[in-house]
């Protein structure tokens, strides 16, 4: 009899301890998500009191809305372009930082700097740097003779996405460096020595020892970066506002524009849900692929 009481007591205490976190999650995550789901089924305009129920009309509207498909395409380009570059550069820099050389401490600090600078500050500075007439990027490129006429980094629909990717990669590749460096330093040195003695070249050592050790963290980092890049709003919005002519409008930017510039909350909510759905599909694809890779290992 005594045991039973303490069992229930334990459960009660456990529940009580979890209550604050549960409450926070409920208020900050569950309720807003539910609200958005509700809005997506209603005709909600900012400033209008009435929210008439319209069923799936908002989703149908999204399906026929050309800028939505444009945004979807842009999002995929943005995510794939950014993350692949971040991973390659991140791994390369991590490999370099893993060696001992004079000034390594300073090199590490410099590498991590972009990640530590507040996004807003960094992006605004980049915006000035990429200005076609006033910016230093064009200035130095022209001076170095690498280009003949100034490049329209922010104003050409063909170039703008590249510009945005450059800034995104610059800001977040240090995260990849950090993750990879940790694993690199945990690889036992004698495996490399054994491989050296067995006749493996630098490249073979990388391919056959480093990479297999890195693979799990590599995939995980790529996944995390993909998710976060998918949702990234501030870099694109501050750099180009989604322009010119929608060439850098990704799904999050489109949702923002619909909600807070056009004040069509219902439609924006539908777009937001679709965005979440697309991301979920991508995640499933990722898990499927990574299972394949692991199986082969």
């Amino acid at each position, binding site marked *: 009899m005594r045991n039973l009481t303490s069992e229930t007591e334990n459960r009660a205490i456990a529940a009580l301890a979890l209550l604050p976190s549960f409450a926070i999650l409920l208020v900050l995550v569950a309720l807003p998500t539910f609200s958005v789901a509700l809005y997506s089924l209603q005709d909600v305009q900012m400033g209008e009191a009435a929210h008439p129920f319209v069923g799936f009309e908002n989703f149908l509207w999204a399906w026929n809305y050309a800028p939505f498909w444009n945004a979807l395409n842009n999002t995929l380009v943005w995510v794939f372009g950014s993350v692949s570059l971040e991973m390659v550069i991140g791994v390369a820099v991590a490999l370099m930082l893993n060696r001992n050389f004079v000034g390594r401490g300073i090199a590490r600090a410099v590498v991590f700097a972009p990640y530590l600078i507040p996004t807003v500050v960094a992006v605004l500075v980049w915006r000035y740097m990429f200005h*076609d*007439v*006033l910016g230093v990027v064009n200035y130095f490129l022209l001076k170095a003779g690498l280009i003949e006429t100034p490049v329209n980094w922010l104003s050409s629909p063909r170039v703008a996405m590249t510009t945005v990717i450059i800034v995104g990669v610059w800001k977040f590749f240090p995260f990849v460096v950090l993750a990879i460096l940790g694993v690199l330093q945990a690889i036992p040195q004698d495996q490399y020595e054994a491989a050296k003695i067995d006749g493996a070249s630098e490249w073979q050592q990388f391919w056959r020892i480093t990479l297999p050790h890195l693979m799990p963290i590599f995939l995980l980092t790529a996944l995390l970066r993909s998710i976060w890049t998918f949702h990234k709003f501030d870099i694109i919005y501050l750099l180009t*506002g989604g*322009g010119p002519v929608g060439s850098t409008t990704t799904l999050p930017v489109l949702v923002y524009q619909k909600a807070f510039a056009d004040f069509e909350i219902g439609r924006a909510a539908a777009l937001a849900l679709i965005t979440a759905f697309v991301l979920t599909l991508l995640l499933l694809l990722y898990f499927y692929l990574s299972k394949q890779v692991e199986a082969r290992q």
Partner: protein
Amino acid sequence: MAIVSTRLFGLCLASALLASAGTAMAQGVKVVRFLHNETDPPSMAFFNKAIADFERLNPNIKIEMESVSTDGRLQKVTASMNAKTMPEVFKILAEERMQFARKGYLVPLDNMVASIGANDYLDDLIVKVDGKIYDVPYTINNFSVLFYRDDLLKAANLTPPKNWNELKAAAQALNKGDVNGFVLPAGQNRATSLYLASLVWSAGGTFFDKDLKVTFNSPATVAALAFMKDMAAVSPKGIAAYSYGDMINVYLTGKVALDLYAPRLVATGYDTVPAVATQTKAVVMPVGPSGHAVKFISPNSFAIASPAVGAKNTAEAQKFLEFIVSGERLRDLSLTVFPHMIPPLKSVQAMVIDAAKDKLGGGSNPAELGKVSFDLSNSMSFEDEAGASWVDGKLVKAGLDNPYIGAIVARHIPAQVVQRVLINGEAPAAAAAWGAQEMQKIVDDLKRSAR
């Protein structure tokens, strides 16, 4: 003994506090919240001083000022209205007044305008909604002054252009080396929309006719777009990403010869790059194919929010508002960015031109620049352009309320039309048709939800 006296002490303290609180409430220090977007340092200095002066004269009123960026203003206002936390006095644009007034978000200001003197206001400036006045202008911006580099024109033996053809020719002639002949806005923002509007009007067209039908798809629009395309060819390539500030900055690098823009250019220039500013002269906007030039002017107004959206001390707010938009305060406000802030009161205009003698570094003729900038003849804005026409060489407005234009401009439809032509290379006719279509969609949407 000790316990008793502690209790007694506590009781005394509590009652003293309650009493003082009660007295405070009885005295009633009223707080008036004030939202604006004139964030440049001279304007901020002006407001701080004006507030200090007002509070000295009215010790029971306290003003809490909040400033916001131009681009962020509408969002802040809309969000505050939704949340019913609107500040008492706030900046409002003409195209927003009707919507807000009709929803009951604004307090009528007829008494205040009468007190200032309705006749002292420039013609057509005070607009009534359903017979009442809901906003009062504190400054007017003229976006259609043609600035030019006198040294560059003289060196090329050119005279200031009087019509579009001359403007195009001059810009093309001056577009060499690293100097651009012209610069115009092409970003997805209000600047681009209003630019297109003034050109469409100067080509003889309007966005809406007198029956409030969309007439955007017209030969005038096509002509205006074609003209912008030609002028973009002699402008910096980055215009698609330019904001208000970028246009000024680029001109001030000295790499632009002609600039149809707002007089803030000159005010900023004299502060930062006098070398370029002293070479800059101004003339009236060149006429378009219709034989006329229609300027885009933007009256900036303040309105007072109603208790329905959270405003509280509206009577005190009116007192404050009257204080800052008239008399010497209006003169001082207009002088903070001369000649960009045009006072809407005739009496104050004279005061300003008079006091401006030592503005602009005394260099080039401030009075002359002031006169060109203050010339508001044949001018329109978004919300009063519907059905405008020409009678005996004078622009006559139809005086219609256009409930659709606010949403159209907020969504940057005219700017998107410009971008389609200038960046995507779409044919002006096709872009104009698209623009009209989008505008019609919004009109239909608004009509539907109004039912």
